């Protein structure tokens, strides 16, 4: 399936882009993170990240649909 990935903060630096279209066999954010983290050598373990699908926080086992927009969110530091 095709997904749009969004990257933020240190993950954006590691990926080298703020967004991209990818083709993947992953069907949930958990397995997708495994692929993406290996590709860009992300150092965060999943437990330290949150995931958003189509602009909303989502569980790691949410079933993904073709065309979904996915972001892995590192620990926040606003304020």
């Amino acid at each position, binding site marked *: 399936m095709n997904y749009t990935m969004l990257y933020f903060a240190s993950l954006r630096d590691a990926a080298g882009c703020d967004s991209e279209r990818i083709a993947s066999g992953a069907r949930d954010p958990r397995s997708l993170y495994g692929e993406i983290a290996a590709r860009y050598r992300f150092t965060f373990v999943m437990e330290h990240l949150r995931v958003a699908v189509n602009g909303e926080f989502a569980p790691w086992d949410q079933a993904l649909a073709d065309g979904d927009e996915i972001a892995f969110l590192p620990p926040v*530091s*606003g304020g």
Partner: protein
Amino acid sequence: MKVFSLSETAIDPVVLSSQLENFGTGAIVTFEGRVRDHNDGRAVRGLAYQAYAELAEAEGAKIMKEARARFEISCAVCVHRVGELVLGELAVWVGVGAAHRDAAFAACRYIIDEVKSRVPIWKREHYSEGQPEWLHPAKGSAR
């Protein structure tokens, strides 16, 4: 106006405060978060905030709604900067109006704490020495 918003330009607390005033408001509590010149033992010379704007605005609005449900307040506004900031500049502003001070203090504290822990905004510090770094704090960071 939006009760929670991101701003690419300088925050003006005078303008924001004036939006909280009405004759039923006996107490206004505000919080100003500013860029300081040190963090974790390192000299800081400036910073940048990056946000996942769509989700940050939705989560921020949710926090403001929670505050209005939990506390006896009449109004609340929060603005968070994005982009490059210099030392001393306002990074985040929270203002709460209520009939009485207890609710205003409590709601203001609630809003800033929740914004810091939940809203997808990230800080990148520029140091006097060494490379700039994104801050990705573990739970239990300084309050």
